[in-house]
């Protein structure tokens, strides 16, 4: 092989490797769901979410069959397929979760206890709850919204049925509301569902349970 051909081969091989590295970094490491930014108004923030049994392929092309959270954009009012949101520090956050999923017994009943919210209470359609029995035939819980770093845990009320074309807007749903204070310490606070609801994964703990945009995410607290 001539020298120019060898040099050309080397350059092409080098560029191919560099391109592959850039693709992996951009697609797998830098990619991911968007962050919904909530600005405080009067020291308060309203966060609206919904849970869906599964989603429409157009809104969630990657894994439409996975159970998922959606967050409502405070700017456009559109439902965003993400579990990343940003709130200011030292702010009271009012959370509303619309439940478009069914119900399930929690694996550990300790997650039926409301903690870390204002008054250690949550509201199911306006009715205050502190301890929810997710077993024994009552089936009141579908998922949980928990921020372990704040010792916050809220069992989300089971919906009257399941919606499989999330984000859903025109079906019956449950409504869980609660409030909590963001800490002074800025940074990322992970949140997750403690109901192992990853369909077809070992003990229900794979797939959506371990993927941003579905049943776990980050709350970014900024100054």
């Amino acid at each position, binding site marked *: 092989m001539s020298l120019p051909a060898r040099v050309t081969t080397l350059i092409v091989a080098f560029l191919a490797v560099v391109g592959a590295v850039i693709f992996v970094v951009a697609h797998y490491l830098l990619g991911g769901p968007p962050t919904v930014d909530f600005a405080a108004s009067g020291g308060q923030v309203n966060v609206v979410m919904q849970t869906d*049994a*599964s989603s429409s392929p157009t809104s969630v092309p990657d894994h439409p*069959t996975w*159970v998922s959270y959606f967050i409502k954009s405070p700017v456009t009012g559109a439902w965003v397929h993400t579990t990343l949101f940003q709130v200011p520090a030292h702010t009271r956050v009012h959370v509303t979760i619309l439940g478009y*999923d*069914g*119900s*399930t*017994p929690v*694996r*550990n*009943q*300790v997650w*039926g*206890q409301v*903690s870390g919210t204002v008054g250690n209470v949550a509201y199911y359609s306006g009715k205050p709850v*502190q*301890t929810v*029995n*997710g*077993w*024994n*035939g009552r*089936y009141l819980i*579908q*998922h949980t919204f*928990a921020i*372990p*770093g704040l*010792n916050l*845990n809220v069992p989300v009320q*089971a919906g009257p*049925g*399941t919606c*499989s074309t999330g984000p859903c807007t025109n079906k019956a749903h449950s409504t869980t509301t609660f409030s909590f204070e963001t800490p002074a310490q800025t940074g990322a606070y*992970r949140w*997750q569902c*403690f*109901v*192992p*609801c*990853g*369909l*077809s994964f*070992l*003990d*229900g*703990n794979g797939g*959506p*349970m*371990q*993927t941003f945009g579905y049943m*776990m995410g980050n709350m970014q607290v900024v100054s």
Partner: protein
Amino acid sequence: MAAADGMAPDGIAPDHRREPNHGLRIFLLWLPVALVADLLIWFVWGPHMPPGAMSNSAASQQSDITVMAVMAAPVMALVLIYGVYALIVWRYREGDEEDGPPIHGNTRISVTWIAVTSAIVLSLAVFGTVELVGPAGAGAGEGNTPIWRPSGGSPLQVQVIAQQWRFTYRYPQFGGFETTSLMLPVGQNVQFNVTSLDVIHSFWAYQLGVKADANPGSNNVAYTKPGHTGNVQVRCAELCGLWHADMTTAGHVVSVSAFSAWAASTKIQLAALTKNLPPYSLTYDPNSVSQLGKAFHQAGLSGAGGGYYGSQYPVQP
């Protein structure tokens, strides 16, 4: 004749200088270095060795690491000094083509080497075994039937329940309530019963020197006795999924009276939740969820996740 005229066959005059006692030289160089290193390790570095001395198991581990460092330092010093000495004294010199004296078959060196290394290794083995037995397992998980138990009355029972990605703690001697915070009394023996509800985790209470694997369907017992009040950082020490690194808990060792007050108030505070918990057990079968799923299905309800209870569950209706 070369031998007759005192010349080597190749014409180079043999070196009749008396070879110095290299062994003595190395020993005299090594002795003060080893002595200083051991004194520094024992008196200066030792008290700061991990994991500290907050409990009897942690203190035991700290002293073990210190002793091993004290034994290892002279060996390391000998290797380094020998290496440096060889580089300087036995370096290549212009015109020196002669081999060093053969030591193959030197019985004295062989016996000394075997005796010293055997003594070091065997003494460490005996020491390690004694140290494991003495402080009731030295804070390590001993399985479901521990061989070494602490003396002096029945210990405080604390069940550690691991799940992705949080530890919770159950206190069977106080009505079986379950909390997300670890609270322990100072000066009392504690028995951790460690289990998992899903994958393999590892309960690592760093300052207490306790580390025990948390396996689903299995109970792993570890003992400790906190000697000082303070905070304890609990981490998962077994890669268990995406948020493994964030599976941490803050624990607290408090006075006996503060612990009693906390336990009494928490028992009352969590009474409604405790009623919903399953009966206290050393293990909890994660598959029992599928039993619940069966009843759930029979109630005519649909499952969260659009069918979480997949066909892999034998009791799936």
